[in-house]
């Protein structure tokens, strides 16, 4: 993973988020407070604006910087969670050469940070319903030595499944936790945006090849 790739990915992610304004906004309106799109847009924009500052840095420092910046920019529930993800991922990449396995482990470290910060787990109708299966699958396929394009295609599918699975869940974390049965039938906005991000990054790698 190169810094240039991270910067490019952040631009693609921003485009993707902007393109999904209606979806993200509607989902959070349905079972939250309607600001998830705005929060994600604000976060994405700040990161792309940092491109020049990030360019000279090593990937681990870039991720750390992105995390800290998101922490002071997004706010809400997604802010500290995504920030923790990037900060922990950066830390995990500090003293290694960022092999695919290193990246899979760093991703897992990021997801663990989210679990700890949010005191949440699989099945609670949050972004973790995308992130945990993706992280597990990522580690597994890497350990199995699968090639990058296989991994990417698989993670795209896993993210999609996880995202869709939130639809039938009752929420036990986050703003939708108050809704009980009324949350059923709605995809979790954070799960949707994480799926978008993962898909974007994977597609970027796939097209790169």
């Amino acid at each position: 993973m190169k810094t240039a790739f991270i910067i490019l990915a952040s631009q693609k992610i921003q485009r993707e988020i902007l393109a999904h304004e209606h979806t993200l906004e509607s989902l959070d309106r349905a079972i939250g407070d309607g600001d998830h799109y705005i929060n994600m847009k604000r976060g994405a924009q700040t990161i792309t604006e940092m491109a020049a500052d990030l360019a000279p840095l090593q990937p681990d420092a870039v991720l750390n910087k992105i995390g800290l910046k998101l922490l002071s920019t997004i706010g809400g529930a997604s802010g500290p969670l995504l920030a923790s993800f990037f900060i922990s991922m950066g830390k995990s990449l500090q003293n290694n050469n960022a092999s695919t396995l290193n990246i899979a482990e760093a991703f897992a470290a990021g997801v663990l940070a989210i679990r700890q910060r949010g005191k949440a787990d699989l099945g609670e109708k949050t972004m973790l319903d995308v992130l945990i299966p993706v992280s597990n699958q990522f580690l597994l396929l890497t350990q199995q030595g699968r090639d990058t394009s296989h991994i990417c295609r698989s993670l795209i599918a896993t993210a999609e499944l996880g995202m869709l699975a939130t639809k039938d869940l009752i929420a036990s974390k986050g703003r939708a936790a108050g809704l009980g049965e009324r949350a059923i039938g709605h995809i979790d906005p954070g799960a949707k945006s994480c799926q978008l991000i993962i898909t974007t990054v994977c597609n970027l790698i796939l097209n790169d090849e």
Partner: protein
Amino acid sequence: MKKFINKVDDILLESLSGFSAAHADLVSLHFDPAFIVRHNKASNKVAIISGGGSGHEPLHAGYIGYGMLDAACPGHVFTSPTPDQMLAAAEAVHANQGILFIVKNYAGDVMNFEMAAEMLAFDNATVYTSDDCAVINSTYTTGRRGVAGTVIVEKCVGSLAESGANLQACKALGDKVNQRTSSIGVALTSCTVPAAGRPTFDIGNTEIEMGVGIHGEPGRKREQMREADAIMIDCVDAILADFKVKNLPLEKANEALLLINGFGATPLMELYLIYNIAAKLFKQHGINIARSLVGNYTTALDMAGASVTLCMLDDEIKQHWDSPVHTAALRWGC
């Protein structure tokens, strides 16, 4: 969406600038990160800091001043502020006795304040408010939402801090007031988040959302509009049921504070009308309304609707509710 705004992105800072200009005798506003602090703070007291998403005005900045908050950290509309705001505010107002954060119990607020607390160099503690009883106690919830009862917590804790009490005592009083307070809200219309530009939820001309949150989150259920008496019976029942769950004793002699809070677009005339009903209903259940507050104290932008909050008083809470306060939105005794 018709609102008095210029650009959607500038609403928050323009509104805060207006607030701090209109109350220049009480507060000053800092930018980057944004926080508002009180003038004339004591040099030796627990500093009380609150904050949260904007759109609930006068919460929280309107409660900065003598006898209440020392600082407030405003987030974007309905979005928790970020830890750097809390750190900067703490730096500005700490007065050698530690910092008490008062945080409404939402995942976002909790996590952002928690991260600030972890990074903070000063002694600190946090009171989480969770007075909303709309979300029926159940296995599938992390916690109840903090709503209008937060004002009562801020008032009482602010008063105690002003008297020189230490951090633990302030936290204990905050927790106690929160524990003795229950709220439930009813929406007649949705709010419209300016950046979203359209109503958060659709609601029919004859529908109400019972148990709505102060961000327009869905509540207990969508119901048909009824007369005020019938709506208030349900609200009062929900609160009394919550008091049972909380194991709060309800005896004849019990005195309570009744707060009828408007969500932003409901006129005072209607708020007093439902105050009248709610007070009578509580009385029928042996609860004496010894203190009252009626008005827009914890709003949800331009939502029409109101919440009912009951706080069971004891001598300590009553004393700290009655003590002098001088803020933009609450003022008495000085």
